[in-house]
């Protein structure tokens, strides 16, 4: 399959954006998953709803909310610009942020399920052996929920690759900077004579997404054979 230089740029950009999004979201998602799985605190239900918001709200609306917050005139965006000269709106970092927000709920869900599946009785046993709550978390809960964490990460990566609405609203559609795979396909559809390009990019998009999905399923299956239960 012969890809043009522009198409390679698109693929490279998509991978960079998605990897960045997922790597940065990983610790946040895990912390949220643990909080929701194991802790009781006032506002827990609200936090749960907030985390799931990007799943149900139209992506364009999420993009608009990002603009309000992180745009040049927004509270966070304005501060970033003034203090560090960082602008997210027309940069690949903005595309990564949009992808991260959209991937977060899926990652939190998957991780939360795997943390909940870890038998609490094992954590109790660790405590009686002298492990502090933090040590028990790191030596028992974390390793036993690791397959779920990996699966959630793969799922988040797949979602990031496909992110469109929030990206185009927040980061715009700038070639080489924010024109990820889905945006490139959309742009191609607007231009007459780009059928070949569209077909190639769409195929790659499908292949990448399916590969990530299969990897995610395999990880869940591999880790979920009663491994997390007390014997």
């Amino acid at each position, binding site marked *: 399959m012969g890809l043009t230089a522009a198409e390679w740029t698109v693929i490279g950009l998509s991978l960079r954006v998605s990897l960045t999004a997922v790597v940065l979201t990983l610790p946040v998602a895990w912390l949220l998953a643990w909080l929701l799985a194991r802790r009781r605190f006032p506002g827990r239900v609200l936090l749960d709803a907030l985390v799931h918001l990007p799943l149900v709200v139209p992506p364009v609306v999420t993009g608009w909310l990002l603009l309000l917050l992180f745009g040049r005139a927004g509270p966070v965006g304005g501060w970033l610009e003034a203090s560090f000269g960082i602008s997210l709106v027309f940069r690949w970092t903005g595309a990564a942020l949009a992808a991260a927000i959209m991937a977060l709920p899926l990652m939190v869900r998957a991780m939360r399920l795997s943390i909940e599946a870890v038998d609490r*009785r*094992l954590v109790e*046993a660790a*405590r*009686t*052996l*002298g*492990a502090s709550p933090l040590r028990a978390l790191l030596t028992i809960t974390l390793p036993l929920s690791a397959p779920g964490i990996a699966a959630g990460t793969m799922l988040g990566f797949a979602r990031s690759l496909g992110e469109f609405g929030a990206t185009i609203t927040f980061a715009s559609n700038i070639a080489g900077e924010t024109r990820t795979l889905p945006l490139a396909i959309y742009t191609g559809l607007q231009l007459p004579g780009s059928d070949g390009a569209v077909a190639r990019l769409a195929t790659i998009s499908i292949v990448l997404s399916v590969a990530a999905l299969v990897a995610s399923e395999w990880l869940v299956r591999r880790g979920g054979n009663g491994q*997390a239960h007390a014997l």
Partner: protein
Amino acid sequence: MRFDVTLRHPFGTLGSGIRLHSDAALCAITGASGTGKTTVAHCIAGLLRPAAGRIVVDGEVLFDSDAGVDLPAHRRRAGYVFQDARLFPHLTVTGNLAYGERLTRAGDGWIGRTEMVDLLGIGHLLDRRPATLSGGEVRRVAIGRALLSAPRFLLLDEPTASLDGARVVALLALIERIRDTLPVPILLISHAAAEVDRLAGHVLELAAAPPASLDSRAPFA
């Protein structure tokens, strides 16, 4: 005084208070199912907070509701051998044994690793995963893991439950040897009268019927 425990909490169906005072090497808490034996064990180990009471083991105050003392479980260091063993599935037998051992200070332990492996007869199991062990083997590894964590005391919850005749005999002999050779205080939870009478120097019986106070008795021997 090895065990000095006074607790007020809803135990089982009708019990609400227990008193256990003894210097015996092995004390037993006995009673039919549902009388709250495991609840008592959880309170002593720090996994459950009783309504009120005082728990002192070997002179150390672990819990005192009047004085506001409540040591968290990982500081009470009850060598709890659970009824369902609870070996860590992601670690080998060696990894399980080392889990608590790793958290001790040198010289703190009751028994060395090699001695303990010999005592329990688990040398041939060291590289195995818990999922591949038999019921009796799991129990022995659990006891080893608890012993190696330099516990303040051993807490055995129905150690012979769901084991067959020969294994029960072997395990009881093992517990006897631990009782007689190591100075670690032992608290045994069991509903099997024969076991309790054989091993315990002091027995607390939990009853479901309502006498207001539940006192300990010395065994007939």
